[in-house]
């Protein structure tokens, strides 16, 4: 159990460090690379929670897909890599309040032990259960999310094809 805990702290520290670079880094490409590491750290946390499927999907979708596209967009935008990104803007106070509120809420939830946040039952293999749950109990939310994604995709195409 101690090993698990030690790994948790290592991973958490790594994730936080990477996330810090993402938020505070001045170079946008470096920030994007750090984002990849942050996602990997989160995937590691998933593994510690016995959610291997989620971890693999996290790496596949977020690292292999989304961040790559992000980097792609950065590189295609001419010379954006050269300009130092502004770390702080006018809404810093507002976002700080929002962040602090979220943190407080999470701390409260963790300490109070809200039932939904207690550990899931140990399963020998998570993916069949996940699949069944998505296609039975949570079929409607799942479809709603797909429609949302479809809408996002259509919107992106419309934006890209301006003429």
């Amino acid at each position: 159990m101690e090993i698990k805990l030690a790994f948790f702290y290592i991973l958490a520290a790594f994730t936080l460090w990477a996330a810090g670079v993402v938020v505070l880094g001045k170079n946008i490409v470096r920030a994007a690379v750090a984002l990849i590491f942050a996602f990997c750290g989160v995937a590691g946390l998933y593994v510690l929670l016995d959610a291997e499927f989620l971890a693999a999907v996290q790496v596949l979708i977020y690292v292999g897909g989304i961040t790559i596209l992000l980097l792609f967009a950065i590189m295609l935008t001419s010379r954006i890599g050269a300009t130092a990104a502004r770390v702080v803007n006018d809404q810093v106070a507002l976002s700080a309040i929002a962040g602090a509120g979220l943190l407080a809420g999470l701390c409260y939830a963790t300490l109070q032990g809200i039932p939904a946040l207690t550990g899931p039952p140990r399963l020998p293999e998570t993916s069949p259960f996940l699949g069944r749950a998505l296609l039975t109990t949570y079929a409607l939310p799942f479809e709603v999310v797909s429609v949302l994604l479809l809408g996002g995709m259509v919107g992106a195409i419309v934006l890209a094809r301006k003429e």
Partner: protein
Amino acid sequence: MNETHTPIPVGTTVVVERTDETMEEMYVNMGPQHPSTHGVLRLMLKLDGEYITDCVPYVGYLHRCHEKIGENRNYTQVIPYTDRLDYLASMSMNFGYVQAVERLMGLAVPPRAEYMRVILAELQRIASHLIWLGTFGLDLGNFTIFIYCFREREMVLDLFEAVSGQRLNYSFYRIGGMAMDFPDGWVENCRGFLEWFKPRLPEYDALMTDNILFRKRVEGVGILPTRTAVEYAASGPVLRGSGVAWDLRRNDPYSVYDRFEFDVPAYDSCDVWARYLVRRQEMAQSVRIVEQALAQLPAGEIQAKVPKTIKPPAGQVYARTESPRGELGFYLVSDGSPKPYRYKVRSPAFVNLSALPEMLKGCLVADCVAVLGSVDIVLGEVDR
């Protein structure tokens, strides 16, 4: 350090210029140091996204004022310089030059010498097309065809070496004849090579012509319409690839070309594919010509009587021959002195290259390499 970090192009410049709100035009330099420009050629490509809207070739990096040098040498001394024009087809360059001088002098060449010239020039055409095929394959990412072609070219070079002692710059043609006769057994060796070479052509087909990936890269790419090709005075495989079956060996016969039976392959799809097919078929036709010439090869003199110092009568001539790359013209003006008063080379690659912007317009950037490869330039000849 990181604040100023940006991918600065190496050896290239990019100017982004906004012509209006929606369209961005970009200038991209290709070359002069680039693996696919076959020498030091620089292309300034004007891009609209992935498409080429215009192209400006910059030539002259190899310029050595060949024509000025020629005017300061006597007629015989010019021959080695012609080798260096199209260094992949030196025999053909020699041929064009000596033929022009002979026309100027009104000199008749012994038949055996004429046949030797034709044999060597056609072998040279095969070697030159082989190099083209190999490097074209290389441009499109097919490395194997390159090695195959060089294997056969090596054999042609061996034949040339046996004849002239040289492998690249032969200087073997003389005004009024040839430097030496074929050595003993050469004709048999040459026949052996042809027998060996003929079954190799289907091998190239298997690797290139019948390969669907290759065809997807070349079909419908780099269109040069027939009319434009004639306007630009394109010649050789570029003209024949634009649907004009025009070959000086057939249409304005020189030497003894009127004694052979051969086809002039031409294809009317006007694209890279057509130019590829023309060169591919021409190798087979050259084999036919060499075979007939070897069969008809007469015995006798190989050198006409020429004075020790060649002084053509005052006058001028524009003599053209069909080099592997197209119409090779020599414009000579003589004032009766031992040196050419004016010596001008109409190099086929130079003229064909001037039509390149027409072929590239509307092409994808990625096709640029294929189109440039299909023109088959040799910059020693373009830049002179």
